[in-house]
Every structure is written in structure tokens, then in C-alpha cells.
């Protein structure tokens, strides 16, 4: 059986973390390796647990999501990071996220099909990388 996709969730809202935990819990082959509430904690846990995917809010108090995205991508470029945000419709915010290396920008309210498709893409990327390394 294929190894699970390890996902780290980062959002200052407990409601959003609960929502994402429920959505991802319904998908096969996904394991949540952590739930953090700010960018600094996200950087620390990402470096420790090296997840396949991070779903991270853009607007958070303290170190925001875009700053954390920049740092995590510079330390671990292989980690896929999708930003989740209610302000994703703002071209400046979404464009900045893509420039910094986000693999996707998901709006709120969440679109379940998009999240499922994102997990599938991450799974395929991991398979491709494994094949290349053989």
C-alpha cells in the first residue's frame, strides 16, 4: 500500500483547523501530522516533520503565512505548500503566494473537489520524484 500523504495544517482559527481536519479525514491515504496556529510554529514543525503538503492561511497574527511560506520554501524546497485564504481573490495576495513558491491558492469557503484534486497532485508528484530517484 502506498505511504500516506502527510499534511501539516496551519491556521489561526480553530474552526478552520477543525474544518480541514474533517475534510482531510474523509480522504483515503492522508495523515495529518500537525495543526499549528501561526507561521513561526509552522516553520518549526515543517522542518521537524517534513510533511508532503502544508495547507497554510495567509493572514495570521505574528508571522503571517506568506513570510512562513518564503522561509519554509528556502529551507525545504521539496515541501508542497498550498495557501488557504479568504483574501485569495485579491490578485496581489495570490500572485505573491505563487511567486514565493505556493503550489496552489485555495479560497474560503473551501471547495472539496479542489482539495481532493490537490492531494492527488501531491501524490502524483511524490510518485514521480520517487521514480526519478530510483
Amino acid at each position, binding site marked *: 500500500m502506498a505511504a500516506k500523504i502527510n499534511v501539516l495544517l496551519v491556521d*489561526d*482559527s*480553530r*474552526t*478552520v483547523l*477543525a*474544518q480541514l481536519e*474533517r475534510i482531510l479525514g474523509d480522504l483515503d491515504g492522508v495523515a495529518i501530522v500537525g495543526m499549528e496556529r501561526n507561521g513561526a510554529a509552522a516553520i518549526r514543525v515543517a522542518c521537524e516533520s517534513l510533511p508532503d503538503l502544508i495547507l497554510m492561511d495567509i*493572514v*495570521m*497574527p505574528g508571522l503571517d503565512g506568506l513570510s512562513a511560506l518564503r522561509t519554509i520554501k528556502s529551507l525545504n524546497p521539496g515541501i508542497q505548500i498550498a495557501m488557504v*485564504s*479568504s*483574501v*485569495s*481573490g*485579491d*490578485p*496581489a*495576495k*495570490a*500572485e505573491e503566494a*505563487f*511567486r514565493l*513558491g*505556493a*503550489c*496552489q*491558492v485555495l*479560497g*474560503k*469557503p*473551501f*471547495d472539496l473537489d*479542489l482539495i481532493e*484534486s490537490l492531494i492527488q497532485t501531491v501524490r502524483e508528484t511524490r510518485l514521480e520524484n520517487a521514480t526519478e530517484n530510483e
Partner: protein
Amino acid sequence: MGVKFFGQFLIDSSEVDASHVREALELMDHENRPLGQIAIAEGFMQQRQVVRVNAEQRNRDLSFGDLAVDMGLLRSEELVTILKVQRTTRLPIGQALVRLGHVASDRLGVLLDSYKTDQAQYDVAMMDLPNGLVSHRVSHYVIDLFPRFMLRVARMKVKVGEVKDFDQEPEFREIAVSVPIQGARGLEVALVCDLEFGEALAMAASGLDRGDLNPEMVADAVGEFLNVLCGNAAGAVAKEGHPVELGPPDYEAELCDGWMIELAVGIGRAALVLSTF
């Protein structure tokens, strides 16, 4: 779901991937001149004046053009001219993707039409609002999108009532959360409700049972709903060319002035309070 920009729509529709959008953004960065450079090319400003405006932007929350006019370095009619030049010469993301070969040129029109259809659900009409709010574009979005997002996020039907001057706190206040939308003119959006409404919203949004909720979770859910509502409103006005910034929620909002909009919510009681700053 939600307000999105064209590049994101194309990724969501599996037309391109993030690396294509990134390439297109790099091309746009290379081709699209900032307003200051256009002002220099048109002979309206000098390089050192542009540098002064850029430096001042670190202290003041104004766009380059508005700040240059405010500092007396650019005339209003010159600003209109350079904005027009910027608009007409700007390479949009769709064209950038075509130029890079990631989208076929004969497909771009179809995709733009699909995008407009997808986003039409977030169009709002100008409403009949009090003088202090009528020119505040984002307030139209907040009020108009409120029932749509309540239905989508919490599956709750809501009717938006009359906009009245705020004179006193509603007697049902048990939770009051506000979110600031900062821009050329700021708007503070507060959602005031009783516990019954807050719990219904929290259960629907988080999927948790009432027994798993605590007061912090309920306030958090109300704040997150406001965040989604205001974020989409902010995204919509940003797409119209009015950049705004969303601040984090204040879970103990102070309500003292502005306007109150009564909401017929079915479960419990709630109202929106808008104030400008």
C-alpha cells in the same frame, strides 16, 4: 469557490499549473512598468521624486499615485493620464500565458468567458446606503454577500434588514467580533449576535457538535465567518483596482458608532455593525 483571480481560476480548472502562473507573473513583472516609471517616461516626475514617494509609502497607507499627488509631486490630471497608460499597456496574465505557450490564443476568449460566468455570482449592485457608506464600495459587497455566504458556509437563510444609524448596543449582544478592512478609507465590520446564533454558526462551520464547543470556539467561528465574508469583499474590490488589507479579527469588538443592519436569521439574533475609520 469564492472570489478568485484569473490565474487561480485557470489552475482550479486544470488549464495550467502553478509553475505556468509563476512564469507568467515573472513575464508580467518584466513587461509591466510601475506607475513611477510611467510618470518619468511621460515627463511628469523625476527619478528622485519617485524615490521620495516610494520611501514615504513605508509610512503612509496610500497608493503611489494618490501619495504623489498628496505630496505635490504630480498633478491629478497627470495621475489620470499615467493610470490610463498603465491600464492600456499592461500585459494581463491571460496574454502572458498565451505568449508563453501555456494557453492557446484561440482558447483564451472561451476561458475568460467561463471565468466571468464563474465570478458573476459575486457581482453586486450599488445599494441604497446612507451617505457615509454609499461611496464605500467594500460596504456594498459586505452587505450583499452576507446572506450568500451565510447560506454557503452555515446553510442558514438570512434576510438583510434596514440600515440604521447605530445608537446603542443591541440588547442581545453576547458575542461581538469585528474585522478591519484597511484601505484609502477603512471599514470596520462587526457581527454582533447572541449565543444561540453563534453556536449554530460554529456547529455548521466546524462540523463539531454543540457539546464539543466552548465559548472561545464559538467566537472563533463567528470571527472566521467574518474573515471569509470580508476577505471575499476585499478580494472583489481589489479586482476593481482598489487594494485593501484585511486585519485579524477582534473578538471583543467595541461598538460605538456607525450603522447597524438588522438580520433576520431564524436561529437566535444577530446584526451587522459597520463603521468607517
